[in-house]
């Protein structure tokens, strides 16, 4: 009887110490919702923050968070374990948000893919300028950016994804990702300068 009463506590403490991948494996094996709740509690705020960055409206971001976690629930068995759980989850998040934006705005491709076959290296060009942008200005500039540019910058600076992980998420080659990243940084700075060139940062 006492063992039965203590069981949920033991299970809960075991659950909380799981890594993401262990929790997912256990959820698939046991269908115990505590494992899914753990992943939700760890990541729902981050998913929400990405959704609100991209979709702009809090109500849409909350709906998107719900849809994304339902998608995760329905496709857990498809998770191959080739990447980290967080990378897989964020890839569902970015793809969902980009689809929503395309549906809502029928956003046409603004810029022609520009690969030019030059060897672009991810040498941290413009990183300091972008990372140190004042938070409110950062928010305003991101709102003006194309969703593809915004998502690649969030992957790089907010999620600390490597180039290889970004390749997996957006399904492009390494050189294409480096070029997209560089272009996104350039467009970010162009918008920033057009908005704040004359003002002194506070």
């Amino acid at each position, binding site marked *: 009887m006492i063992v039965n009463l203590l069981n949920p506590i033991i299970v809960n403490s075991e659950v909380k110490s799981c890594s993401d991948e262990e929790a997912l494996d256990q959820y698939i094996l046991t269908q115990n919702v505590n494992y899914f709740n753990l992943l939700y509690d760890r990541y*729902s705020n*981050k998913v*929400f923050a990405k959704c609100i960055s991209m979709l702009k409206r809090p109500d849409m971001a909350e709906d998107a968070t719900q849809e994304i*976690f339902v998608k995760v629930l329905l496709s857990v068995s498809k998770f191959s374990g080739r990447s980290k759980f967080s990378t897989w989850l964020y890839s569902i998040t970015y793809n969902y948000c980009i689809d929503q934006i395309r549906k809502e705005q029928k956003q046409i491709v603004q810029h022609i893919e520009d690969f030019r076959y030059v060897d672009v290296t991810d040498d941290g060009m413009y990183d300091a300028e972008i990372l140190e942008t004042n938070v409110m200005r950062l928010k305003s500039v991101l709102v003006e950016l194309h969703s593809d540019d915004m998502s690649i910058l969030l992957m790089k600076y*907010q999620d600390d994804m490597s180039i290889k992980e970004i390749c997996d998420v957006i399904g492009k080659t390494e050189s294409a990702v480096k070029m997209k990243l560089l272009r996104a940084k350039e467009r970010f700075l162009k918008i920033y300068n057009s908005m704040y060139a004359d003002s002194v940062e506070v």
Partner: protein
Amino acid sequence: MQNKENNFKKLEQYYIAQRPDKGQETKANVMSQKAVFGFISNVVDLFLPKVISVISNALDARSGQMHKK
């Protein structure tokens, strides 16, 4: 990059701070959708084999009658 100031992380925290109930209502909605999907898949698991066997029996019976004729 780790040592530099990263305002993307601060922006993320700013958005999280604005989330009213930290997603508890959304969590409940996700769980209820899971319950609905679970129910539907249980119904399919339980009844689909029976439906298939009823249809195949009916087809067998029909083809048997055709042979008799």
